[in-house]
């Protein structure tokens, strides 16, 4: 299969209701590994992910290695506040497969297997809206990954989770990356970025302020703003 990556952004800009959310961004996203998108609140982390995933229409150039309709099929997105379809856990997991035309029986079988992998096997018949925060986040991740995407956009997947749930979600993310999926992770948790990321994109006021390998970035950021941000200062 031809890879959808690299993704190239040139002057990509996202406006919503007249206000600039993010951009212009010039960025190339290569295949493999995990990229952490970090930066202060309001820097445009969520908007950058939404723009790259195509949830909102961007101005400028956003170019996948394959034509856009084909590229759409290879991506998945986990939102900060995951949406539960008003169905059972199993039906939630089977849903993406059904959309792509998988027969009901096969979709159910794969949903059951996926639930087992994500520790949701005992919840199969429960209505998804009744899950706890941690369970819901695992379900959202399992649902996003059931189509085996080439690239996963995860927007603060652990924002509202306790330590144990965070550890589980991170383990799944790590496993996903090891399985060959490219991860783009927006996070405000520097510990998480250090634990998971190979590359870092530091956003400030809607623009890429600094980008590079994670090890080098955390060892010695090039810009004073990034240094201040890592120190824990308030950066605007």
């Amino acid at each position, binding site marked *: 299969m031809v890879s959808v990556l690299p993704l190239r952004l040139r002057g990509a800009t996202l406006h919503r209701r007249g206000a600039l959310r993010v951009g212009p961004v010039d960025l190339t996203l290569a295949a493999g590994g995990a990229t952490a998108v970090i930066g202060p609140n309001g820097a445009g982390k969520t908007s950058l992910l939404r723009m790259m995933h195509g*949830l909102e229409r961007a101005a400028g150039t956003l170019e996948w290695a394959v034509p856009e309709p084909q590229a*759409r099929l290879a991506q998945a997105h986990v939102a900060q506040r995951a*949406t539960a*379809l*008003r169905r059972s856990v199993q039906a939630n997991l089977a849903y993406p497969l059904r959309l792509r035309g998988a027969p009901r029986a096969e979709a159910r079988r794969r949903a059951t297997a996926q639930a087992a992998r994500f520790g949701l096997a005992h919840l199969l018949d429960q209505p998804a809206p009744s899950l706890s925060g941690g369970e819901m986040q695992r379900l959202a991740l399992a649902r996003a990954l059931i189509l085996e995407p080439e690239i996963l956009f995860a927007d603060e997947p652990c924002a509202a989770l306790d330590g144990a749930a965070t550890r589980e979600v991170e383990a799944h993310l790590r496993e996903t990356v090891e399985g060959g999926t490219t991860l783009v992770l927006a996070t405000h948790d520097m510990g998480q970025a250090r634990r998971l990321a190979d590359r870092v994109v530091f956003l400030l006021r809607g623009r890429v302020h600094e980008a590079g390998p994670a090890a080098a970035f955390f060892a010695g950021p090039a810009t004073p703003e990034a240094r201040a941000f890592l120190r824990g200062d308030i950066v605007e």
Partner: protein
Amino acid sequence: MGDFLAGLAEAGRLVATLDPDLVEITLRSLRVTLTAVAIGCALGLPLGAWLAVRRFRFRRAVIAALNALIGLPPVVVGLAVYLLLSRDGPLGVLGLLFTPTAMIVAQVVIVTPLVASIAHQAMRDLWADYHDLLISLNATRSQRVATLLWDGRRALLTAGLAGFGRAIGEVGAIMIVGGNIDGATRVLTTAIALETGRGDFALALGLGLILVALSLVVSGTTHWILRTERAGRW
């Protein structure tokens, strides 16, 4: 008070003896209304969901028109359908005037905007919730509509029942296009109007009570089938 008690007694007698006229009228009422509601739902529910999902130029105008059509006076609908189906009208050759089919046509016109409008409002809220996920999963437009209809089925039940409520109690339109012909197009509401006019209040009241009971039974049965009120469901 005397009329009311007599009405109760008459209703009891009609039901207890399974009065053949009553059974016939009731079944016709149900047939006309349920058919009209079924057609109204088949048109209105997807239309409501489609209006929630689709963004197009005259969307707001269509929704405003739909909401205005809820207030459409049934008598005017009846008149319009009458003119359409009358012998000189454009559809006169079909010979449908003064038949149950004509009554169904009129009721479909009355019910569809109501069903579509309620469905649209419910679907709009659900769509706000589902939007990002369905876009992310690359659902096609018809898949989005199907998902909204299925996951919002409880709200759509309310839309269907509102349509049923409007249709089963409607007199003006079906009186005009049906003609209240004994044994052919007489239904509960037109029979009540007729008996009241003739001064037979007991019979009218009896029919009225049966009409109310019918509404309750239909609404109760539908809820029971879809298990709306059960705990742990949504």
